């Protein structure tokens, strides 16, 4: 079992959230799927979301691309909602387009994909949800009684 702690570091996560252009690989048009919740949340919070799904032409009115390499202008962060077996190829594509971060959502755990991305110079976040982490540090996760772990006496932290 791979030690995931280095891929869940709070500073690493906050640095990743500073990216503006995010490709969401495996974004579903089904409003009840987790990827749809996350993608919609990211659009609402000002991110430049690029849907990646070969079976769809557009989601949220945004053009879909069949894979990471076909995104015009690339993306800084590649957020993955796919089965772990699909990750190594996605990691290679992320390296090829010069992305800075590979973000693997809950249960998308691929030691091979992580190794490929790291060898290509990317930082990797694993088994974390980008929506939850955004809401934890910069959003309003606390309004529903969740434990953000954030403790600070500063006003408007992260605003």
């Amino acid at each position, binding site marked *: 079992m791979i030690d995931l702690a280095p891929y869940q570091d709070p*500073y690493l996560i906050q640095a990743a959230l500073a990216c503006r252009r995010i490709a969401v690989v495996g974004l579903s048009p089904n409003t009840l799927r987790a990827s749809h919740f996350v993608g919609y949340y990211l659009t609402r919070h000002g991110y430049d979301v690029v849907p990646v799904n070969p079976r769809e032409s557009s989601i949220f009115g945004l053009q879909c691309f069949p894979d990471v390499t076909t995104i015009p202008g690339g993306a800084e962060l590649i957020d993955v909602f796919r089965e772990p077996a699909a990750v190594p190829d996605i990691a290679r594509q992320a390296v090829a387009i010069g992305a800075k971060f590979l973000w693997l959502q809950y249960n998308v755990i691929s030691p091979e994909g992580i190794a490929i991305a790291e060898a290509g110079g990317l930082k990797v976040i694993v088994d974390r949800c980008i929506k939850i982490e955004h809401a934890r540090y910069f959003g309003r996760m606390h309004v529903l009684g969740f434990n953000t772990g954030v403790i*600070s006496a500063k006003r*408007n932290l992260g605003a």
Partner: protein
Amino acid sequence: MNEKPPKPLDYGFHTRAIHAGARPDPTTGARALPIYQTTSYVFEDSESAAAYFNLQEYGNTYSRIMNPTVAAFEERLANLEDGVGSVAFASGLAAQAAVWVTLLEPGDHVVASGALYGGTVTQLKHLLRKLSVELTFVNPDEPGEWRTALQPNTKLLFAETIGNPGGNVLDIQAVADIAHAHGCPLVIDNTFATSYLCRPFEWGADIVVYSATKFIGGHGTSLGGAVVDKGTFDWSNGRFPIIADASPAYHGLKFHETFGTYGLLMKLRTETLRDLGAALSPFNAFMLAQGLETLPLRMRQHVANANAVATFLSNHPRVSRVSHPGLSGSRYAELVARYLPRGAGAVFCFDIEGGREAGVRFIAALNLFSHLANVGDAKSLVIHPATTTHRQLGDAELAAAGIGPGTIRLSIGIEDAPDLIADLDQAMAASAGRLQ
């Protein structure tokens, strides 16, 4: 982001008790936790309103479901427990009922300790019967009884960290292992220990429930309860379609798949709390959050006083039994050393010579102890369980809960221990004198 905040969970228990959940108010800069005494919240626009109701965005809609003051209390409580979050309720019994209603369906089965608070025993017996859920009470001290009580339809195991009022200390890890081997969560009422004395999640428990009315508040002013989730139970293990499958009560949402580790809490809040309506008031949440700030300080004094009083009583010639599990020679000594190293709480019983009549006279002669039906107050409290808190129980159920007809329950406060001991001593003498 201007500066890096420190990493979460680096801070100690006292710091978290003071700060967790309550950052300075972003609008006014108020340093104390504001009491958001409002029923509802103005939406930014229609799209935001839709996103809140669809649970696509974290936002406030209506105070029956969420409120900023209540949320601060919830986050602080969950932080101290190292849970993923919590949902507060109007009382501890409301919080428990919410767990039953969320996890159970007609035809399911529950295994519970037979040494629970009387109000909980009554709730389990009658509420579960009305929900067509089967129930088996077991002796919590015997792990084998937990195992043999399991049925194919068993959905959860439930016990108290420290039994009320018998003082049974649960072997949490043993019972958690039995629950998990059966694909079930272990739900623990941690009211008597609080997260300062024991954190059941560290020993395998999956859900913790609280009556916050007790040590969490500490002031005896405000009712409240809460459910805290560890967030690691696999609700998609095939035994919990009520959590994993598309919910007809929330337009087909699959709570566990969609919200992962937060799924159970989202369902508890947006379905169960929404439907039961047992919301914690913002004012009570403020009082309870205030209480948590001093929880570790108070618990240390509670525990020290309780140890002193229990030792005094155990050496008193007119006392036949003291149920404090922290006393040397207690049958729970090993479990206390493992699960409650900082102390075995401050609520316990003793039997006074002369039975029921002597007990009634003893209570009447006390000066500092308040005769009332609560525990966990900063003030020392006393009650006669057989005629009050546990009066709905039959003799066999009383015996199972470790209560005799002359048993007296004490909740030791944070006064000076010598004063408490002197009061007990004079009341003991007074009750004996009048008997002669």
